[in-house]
């Protein structure tokens, strides 16, 4: 993917549930590289926005146009949910699952599972049931299971909410290294510090509307709208 080329274009996207507008109208373009932070308070529509991009949330009107062929869009993307979904299997089997779905060779799967277990620091736990891991370990497993598919695009929905500093640092390190080896990352958070540490560009969401979008330094240092200014100052915005 060439830097600077548009990756996806949203045009007047609206999501309505029970006749209430929960997202939109949103029109924006995302570039082909970098780490985009979708920033906003709870209920701003971050989850809905990510799910629309990933194609697992029905849109009521508007269009989402990816630069790649329709068929390969979902196949080249991974998504880490706000509450990580753990298969009722061992850590090893959770990691292997996406590769098994693609019908890959057992020896190749084993090799990747061992590599990623090491990356996420769960080598010792390979044979433990995933449902018994701690919150941070579950998030790391979900991240490993997302990265093992070698996605072009990785969505993360508040992966560090409720985690302590150490787990957060480990996850951020994994994200930065995936990003620098070419994985496009689009991540929702309401954590300002995390945005400052990771973002190359920011989409600021509030009440289902995009209030600001642009390079991280512009938005985080000199926001234009009063809502973004207030949020960045640490005030409570709703």
């Amino acid at each position, binding site marked *: 993917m060439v830097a600077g080329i548009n990756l996806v274009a949203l045009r007047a996207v609206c999501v309505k549930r029970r006749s209430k507008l929960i997202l939109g109208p949103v029109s924006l373009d995302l570039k082909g590289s970098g780490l985009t932070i979708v920033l906003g308070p709870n209920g701003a529509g971050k989850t809905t926005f990510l799910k629309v991009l990933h194609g*697992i949330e029905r849109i009521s009107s508007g269009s989402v146009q990816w630069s790649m062929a329709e068929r390969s869009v979902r196949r080249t993307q991974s*998504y880490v*949910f706000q509450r990580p*979904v753990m*298969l*009722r*299997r*061992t850590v090893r089997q959770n990691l292997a699952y*996406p590769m098994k779905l693609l019908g890959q060779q057992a020896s190749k799967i084993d090799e990747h599972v061992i590599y990623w277990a090491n990356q996420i620091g769960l080598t010792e736990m390979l044979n433990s*049931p995933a449902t018994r891991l701690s919150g941070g370990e579950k998030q790391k497993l979900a991240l490993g299971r997302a990265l093992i598919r070698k996605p072009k695009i990785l969505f993360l929905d508040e992966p560090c909410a409720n985690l302590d500093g150490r787990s957060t640092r480990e996850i951020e390190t994994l994200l930065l290294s995936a990003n620098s080896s070419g994985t496009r990352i689009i991540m929702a958070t309401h954590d300002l510090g995390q945005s400052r540490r990771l973002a190359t560009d920011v989409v600021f969401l509030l009440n289902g509307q995009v209030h600001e979008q642009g390079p991280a330094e512009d938005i985080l240092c000199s926001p234009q709208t009063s809502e973004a200014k207030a949020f960045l100052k640490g005030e409570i915005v709703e």
Partner: protein
Amino acid sequence: MNEIWAGIVEAFRLIITLDRDLFEITLRSLQVSMSALVIACIFALPFGTWLAIRRFRFRRLTIATLNALMGLPPVVVGLIVYLLLSRSGPFGVLGLLFTPTAMIIAQVIIITPLIASLTHQAMRELWAEYHDLLISLNTTSRQRILTLIWDGRRALLTGALAGFGRAIGEVGAIMIVGGNIDHATRVLTTAIALETGKGDFALALGLGFVLIALALLVNFAIHTLSRTEQEGTW
């Protein structure tokens, strides 16, 4: 009281010496109920799973019907199967009445709704948990059903065991369609009914102990399974 005590002693003798009648009847009971279980599972497991993950127009009605069928009185099932299989009935030419096959048919009808309903409940829960991930990973319908059945296998086995327990302890329907014929269609429950009527408490009690042992075994297995499920041990 003496009679009952003597019955208990005799019952143990029959069990310990592997009495031929007792052995034959127990074996037939297991054969009939196991066959019914396997056939019922072939229908009920995929159907219950499918019902959990598919949205379609008459879904609620189908589930309500399933739950209603679960409450069918076995005696009525027996009567209906009898009418269908009797010489003048639509399937009379097959000559199945008063054979173990007829008993299997009746038991399949009795336990299929139960197993399907339990499967549906368990799979609905699991699907709610897995839904987002399986959609995101672009799985095919086949992959989804296989994943759910595999990861829900303990719950499914529990449902199957409940079905087996119901089948092996059932008496009304198989009495009607099997006829309780010695060396042909006599099983544990029908034999107990007969021997009690005749006043032969020894054999009745011996059969009863075997039945209780089987029921306990099934319940113990269900209990163990649901505990490993909760504790997340594999």
